[in-house]
């Protein structure tokens, strides 16, 4: 191995040019989100990587509430609640609208040592009472969601309703909207608190077991570790289970043809309603929807990824697939008993292979804790990113509709082009105009939004480099490895790709990523960059995407293998691929850039490589 010169580095975040026509992109975001001269020395010395896992596209100004909420609450738990000994915060910046993150760790052993007793006492209390705490957590999450649902934004009326007078409440609808908007934001931040209350501890316990296994059995596949810990009663398989159930019911009730023959969801529902048994099926659909169709078609951090409940294209498309398979006599059930049996067999066989009784005791302790925390690790996404966030986005839309109805915005979706603090200004402006019955500055907002739409369009064409700043000697920070799937090797490959001028030469080189799900498969590539392209996927194709969301699960029934740009072994694509027994390589960095639809790919889920074999 030739020695690498020590000077290899990623571009400075200060040297990244803005895309032509989007030079003014910084106006979309608050000052604290930008690289800045006064922090230059600190910022240039750090390693920043692109968070395509949660935010594959440029961040809409309003959507920044999601990234900002973990910016404060994840870090608060890490540094100020648990004092995870070696961890400092994970910082964020926006570059050309794309989110870059940078974890920090403590090197000074004395400083780390000081934090140990704090961590042991606090984390200890949570681990010891985990089951009870998790049960309460579910209650808190559901209560938070229930309160979110109650927030209703009504259009501004020509004249205040009579009820304001009869109730003698003294407050008004303008005040209501101001309060409800604040409540909406608070509710979002409250859920973010719950999200990170258990998140770090959950992943920490999982990682402890994972590291133990890797130590005891060098090169043990990550999927083996996940299979020993993972449960089968996972909420994010529930929506897909509901879809299977509805597919079976459609055949039983004889409404399957009406569903299969109508691609458009509205027409399909109308056709089903018109046949006998249709009412019963529609009732079953309604029942399944709450809450299981509050299932985002994306990672839940961007408003444009709609939930199934808002757009039935994905679940109805999946049902058409399942109906075809059922008619062909296939079994579409997940083999739950078998998965559970395998989980016990694998764990007991690895355990037997350990060298000493002390190791077996460590294995039992760490596996026990990992399994204890796992229901949270696996299920929280449904509560937080899917159920809560999907409703949250709709509430923001409802507020947008108030602006649209008053003629302040052209379209209710325009609200997403303003930052939440700017929405305060626009709201106040509109309420003032409404109260005075004089003109407000709707023209200003409309012009600004139009300009921002243009800028966002340019930003979307830009390809964010995987990393900026100073590369670390080794990637050791826990969340970086676990959540984002970034490893020392990966950073080396990015540096290599940067030198080799990466993207041009896709055919010759193999892409490397995480071996997320075992097996080797060849097939034609289907590059998907947005959820509305999912119906283009054909049987046996290799799905190549920036990142997958759990709601894509049905498409996994069709494909031969999966490749993603971002994600680690616990990413959705990895979990779902293992579930479906498909070879998958995740975290390739450049997959969607280097691969073109139609090229023949070889996906090696054992080695973590993707090769273009033809085309």
């Amino acid at each position: 191995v030739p020695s690498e010169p020590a000077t290899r580095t990623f571009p400075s975040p200060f040297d990244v040019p803005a895309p032509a026509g989007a030079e003014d992109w910084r106006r979309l975001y608050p000052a604290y989100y930008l690289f800045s001269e006064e922090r230059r020395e600190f910022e240039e010395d750090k390693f920043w990587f692109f968070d395509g896992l949660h935010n594959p596209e440029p961040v809409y100004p309003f959507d920044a509430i999601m990234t900002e909420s973990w910016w404060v609450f994840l870090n608060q738990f890490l540094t100020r609640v648990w004092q995870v000994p070696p961890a400092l915060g994970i910082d964020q910046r926006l570059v050309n609208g794309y989110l870059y993150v940078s974890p920090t760790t403590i090197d000074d052993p004395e400083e780390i040592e000081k934090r140990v007793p704090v961590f042991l006492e606090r984390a200890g209390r949570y681990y010891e009472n985990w089951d009870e705490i998790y049960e309460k957590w579910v209650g808190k999450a559901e209560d938070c969601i229930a309160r979110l649902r109650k927030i209703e934004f009504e259009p501004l009326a020509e004249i205040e309703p009579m009820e304001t007078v009869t109730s003698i409440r003294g407050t008004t609808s303008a005040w209501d909207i101001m309060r409800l908007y604040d409540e909406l934001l608070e509710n979002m931040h409250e859920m973010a608190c719950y999200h990170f209350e258990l998140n770090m501890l959950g992943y920490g316990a999982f990682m402890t077991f994972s590291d133990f296994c890797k130590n005891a059995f060098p090169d043990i596949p990550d999927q083996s570790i996940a299979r020993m810990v993972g449960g089968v009663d996972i909420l994010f398989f529930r929506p897909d289970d509901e879809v299977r159930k509805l597919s079976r019911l459609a055949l039983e009730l004889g409404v399957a043809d009406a569903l299969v023959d109508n691609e458009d969801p509205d027409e399909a529902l109308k056709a089903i309603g018109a046949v006998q048994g249709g009412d019963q099926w529609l009732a079953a659909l309604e029942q399944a929807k709450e809450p299981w169709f509050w299932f985002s078609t994306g990672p839940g951090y961007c408003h444009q990824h709609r939930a199934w409940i808002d757009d039935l294209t994905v679940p109805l498309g999946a049902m058409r697939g399942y109906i075809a398979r059922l008619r062909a006599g296939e079994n579409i059930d997940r083999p739950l008993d078998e998965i559970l049996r395998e989980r016990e067999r694998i764990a007991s066989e690895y355990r037997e292979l350990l060298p000493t009784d002390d190791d077996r005791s460590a294995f039992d302790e760490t596996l026990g804790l990992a399994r204890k925390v796992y229901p949270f690790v696996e299920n929280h996404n449904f509560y937080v990113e899917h159920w809560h966030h999907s409703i949250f986005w709709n509430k923001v839309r409802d507020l947008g509709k108030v602006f649209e109805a008053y003629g302040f915005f052209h379209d209710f979706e325009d609200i997403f082009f303003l930052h939440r603090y700017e929405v305060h200004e626009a709201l106040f402006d509109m309420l003032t105009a409404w109260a005075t019955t004089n003109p407000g500055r709707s023209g200003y907002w409309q012009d600004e939004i139009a300009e921002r739409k243009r800028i966002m369009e340019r930003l979307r064409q830009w390809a964010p480099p995987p990393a900026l700043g100073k590369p670390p000697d080794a990637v050791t920070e826990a969340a970086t490895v676990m959540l984002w799937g970034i490893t020392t090797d990966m950073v080396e490959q990015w540096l290599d790709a940067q030198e080799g001028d990466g993207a041009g030469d896709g055919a010759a080189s193999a892409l490397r990523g995480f071996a997320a799900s075992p097996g080797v498969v060849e097939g034609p590539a289907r590059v998907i960059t947005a959820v509305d392209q999912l119906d283009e996927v054909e049987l046996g194709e290799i799905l190549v995407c920036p990142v997958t969301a759990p709601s894509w699960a049905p498409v996994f029934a069709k494909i031969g293998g999966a490749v993603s740009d971002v994600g680690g072994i616990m990413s959705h694509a990895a979990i779902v691929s293992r579930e479906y027994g498909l070879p998958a390589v995740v975290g390739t960095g450049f997959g969607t850039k280097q691969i073109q639809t139609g090229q023949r790919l070889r996906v090696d889920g054992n080695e973590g490589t993707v090769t273009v074999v033809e085309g």
Partner: protein
Amino acid sequence: MSAAATQIRWLEECDASSVSEVGGKCASLGELIRMGMAVPPGFAVTTRAHDAFLDRHAVREREAELLASVHYDELREVADASERLRELVEQLELPEGTAAAVRAAYEQLCEGGANQPVAVRSSALAEDLATASFAGQLQTYLWVQGADAVVEHVRRCWSGFFTPEALSYRHRQGIAAEDARMSVGVQRMVRARCAGVLFTLNPVNGDRSKVVIESTWGLGETLVSGEVDPDRFTVDKVTLDLLATTIGAKQVERRPDPAGGGVVVADVEAGRRSVPSLSEEEAMALARVGKAIERHAGRPQDIEWAVDADTDEILVLQARAETVWSQRERPPTVQKRGSALEYVLADLLNR
């Protein structure tokens, strides 16, 4: 028991308790058959037959005479004694009953098809033990055809009982001449598409959660002797996932000599060198075989195997206890701690 029954024992009649009769190799092949493994059919020419041969011709007396004056640290002297004993043995006839029993067993092994090729190998008492590697295993004759040739090669194996290495070994181990004897195994040859060895641990680092398979084209002897860079497959022992594949150059292969008996070494055509000699399914099936044998034996194994070119069947040729890692102390993976929380802390601090 008939005379033939004391001279010959079929492999399926052997097991771990038969070592003194049929030697370690044949006894372990019998065990493999009993556990349901596919093993090429064959028989052992027993130690009793060997005893009878040595007694008939008073070879032990001659041995005692020759070795009495040998200084074992003088290699020349050992070599001289060896040469004279081997010359003697190679001139001697097998007792008639033994020769007839070998011929009859060989005919039976051919199952009507005349002159089926067999391998003739020594199966000594001390070899194949986890703690000893005995020089006697050097006697292996491949692709022997015809009853006369089989009888001839049994005698050659017996001659190999007196190699300088074998004499020195017995002296070193303090094995008296009257206690030493050897069995010979006769086994149908496998027409091997590919063959090789497998370890039920990773021979590089001793990791017991892996099965490592080395494989090459043709008979496995090219691999054992180090004439080729084999393909290497690493399989997870628990999940049977194929974790890594390295394709070796597989420069040459051993095939039967088209001109007659024995085998020849031939170059592998360039186009076939880069082709994996095993499919993923075959690697997994081999790992399953290794796992089953290890479980039966209760310790890590070193196994020789071949894939039949006609039937694609996996055949086990030999299974021994792995000797390198099995004898080392296995250090603990982690320091024992009082609670799961303390393991979490240690993990956070040691990243």
